């Protein structure tokens, strides 16, 4: 079973994504801040990560950068969730190695389709 790590400080979003993805047969791990997310990523070595950008302590960009520079984790695909107002998000997201960038509020089907495409 494929493992997906969900990291977002908005618990409700994590809940809904987890519900849908588990329904589609994935195993989900959840973290609600960047620190835990990074720790969990190294622990479980997921097949894919969905990261929120705006989080306290360590934000999504930083996690992405840290993982992509590490040979052990650099092949994990990353989907980055960002708020639309941050104009530079997309650019930074690409530079930090996120594979796909999805703006909030997102369409659930879009996320599921993207996950299926990546793993």
């Amino acid at each position, binding site marked *: 079973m494929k493992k997906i790590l969900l990291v977002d400080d*908005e618990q*409700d*979003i994590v*809940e*809904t*994504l987890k*519900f*849908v993805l588990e*329904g589609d047969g994935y195993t989900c791990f959840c973290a609600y801040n960047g620190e835990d997310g990074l720790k969990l990523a190294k622990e479980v070595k997921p097949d894919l990560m969905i990261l929120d950008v705006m989080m306290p302590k360590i934000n999504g960009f930083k996690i992405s950068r840290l993982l992509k520079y590490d040979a052990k984790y650099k092949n994990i695909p990353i989907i980055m969730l960002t*708020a*639309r*107002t941050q*104009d530079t998000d997309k650019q930074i997201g690409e530079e930090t190695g996120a594979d796909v960038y999805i703006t*909030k*509020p*997102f*369409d*659930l*089907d879009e996320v599921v389709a993207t996950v299926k495409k990546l793993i």
Partner: protein
Amino acid sequence: MAKILLVSNNEQKIEHFDEILTKCSHDFQCATNEQTFLDILTANMPKIIILDATIPSFDFNQLYRKINELKENTIILSIIKDDKIPQELLNISDAFLPEPISDNILISTININLRRKDTISRLSASNQNLSKNLYQLDVLYNIGSQFAATLDKEKLINIMLEGLDKALDYSVACILTFKSNYEPFLIIDSINQISNRLMEALKLRTVLNYKSLFENKEIPFELNIEDLQTIKYAKNTIDDYDFSILRYDNMFAQINLGDNFFGFVEIYRDKEFTNEDTQCFHTITQQVSMPLKNASYIHEIQQKNKELYRLEHLKSEFVSIVSHELRTPITPLKTSLQILLSGRAGVLTENMEKFLTISKKNVEIFEKIITDLLDMSKIEAGKMDYKFTLTNLEKSIEFIKSQQNCVAEERGLTITTNFDDNYALIFADTSRIHQVLNNLISNAIKFTKIGGNINISTRIIDSKDIICNECFQDDIKKLEGKYVQVCVADNGIGIAEEDLPKIFDQFKQVENSLLREVGGTGLGLPIVKKILDAHNGTIWVDSVLNEGSKFYFVLPVASEKSNFWILHKQLIQQAKVNKSKFITISITSDEDCINNLLKEENLISGIYLNNYLLDNNKGKTTLTMVIPNEDKNIADILKRKIDSTMLSNKTRYGKYDIMYTYATYPKENN
């Protein structure tokens, strides 16, 4: 009558002159030798000197010299014996009395000369007065134009002081004013230094003056001697004035701002003031009143503007924050509804599905409203950043059409396209152009009834050939050159003619029940218009009620020139937001010169050449550059460099024109 001095040692002559002249009530004196003569001259200058040139024993040379020194206001008559007159005597004498002297000739000569002298002195006095008045007039004229040139209170007071000083040459001037927060200020301008004790006296006098000015009246501002601050200016820093200046002649005038008290001015002078001086003084003190009033208005307006700007900024900030906060809960709301509707969470009854669909639809409307609000607040704050690239408009239309097709089909509508055979690119931010198309097409879908058709067509058109409704003419007039025109036509409900002009205005959704039904902030079209504005395009609409609407928009066909002006607009916008300086330089000359300037002179290093345009028009080339002035003086330095190069190579560059447009957006205080 007149003081007359006879220089002679001839007893007879002295006696004779004394008799005649005293009879005519003149004040007669005589000097019998050189020493007495000199003594009399130094003690009291006579009006007439009669020189007896027949006395051989006098040292005339010495006398002449002395007389020459004093001649100015004295009449010299010389008694001579014969026609042999020495040159010096000829030079200094006003008239000659040949011997023997008849009494009548003596008296008439004296009278004529006295009268002549009197006329001349009166003439010179009035001449002096005239030139003084002219000078004062000149000062008045000068400060009049200086007053008109400034709107700064302090400068105005300085100009007034300068004018008073020039015209009236005062010893000390004291000006009482109140700063905006009612702090009293005493400005003292003097020739010599004012000692501390004298300063205290002047302060006391000022307070007393102020109190007496408003005796039995309401005092405009509180004035206590302890609060009175002073500013001293003195031209001569060595000497001190003592209390004697309080005995000098002085003048006093109140300065008003319309009906309001502004302050007063008092000046002291060691010489007495004349009537003309008084007039001049009052003219100047009255003249300053008007510009001071204007200055205070301007100050007020500036304060208000600042406040307005701050509030406007706060509003945008508020809208931006609120809409961002409002967006956050939409994601879980939307996804939860999607989960329920997809049946993932369990089987739904028909009613459950119906109400969940209603919820989902409304969440989507809500999302759209917030997105519009965010976009609008970004546009208003000038923070909308466009990423311009060369774009194929037809491709965008096809893309949006494919997205909207299923919604249209649901409503029983068809979307057709109709493109110009010629192919043209535009310079645009593709995602924003998608937004424009999305807005227009979804509007068309909303307002068209079942079975209707929406047609999207493109056409390459010259700005001269654009036809549109009267109320949009102003926008069309600004266009120039080739454009791609897009028309989104529907056969829906249409728009009433009187509503057409306001359709692109913010928050002015047309009153219409159907419009109400479909919802919306009324921000869609205003946003579309702003996006097109940023692309140097525009939008307009043609519509017949109940028959349908045609929304047209145009975007310039990509070219070096049109792309430049789009970037130019964006750069200026960014400079405004960042409150940085920028400068637009355009140089018009023939082509070679401009190329020289660009390549050979190496004036403009690469990084500043990101945004420039070379435009050929009627044999003249214009180079236009925009230089954001982030590094403070780059634009200034470049301007100087270009100026000096152009000047030093005049022959090479021939005729040229340089135009600089500067804009500075000063940092706010808070």
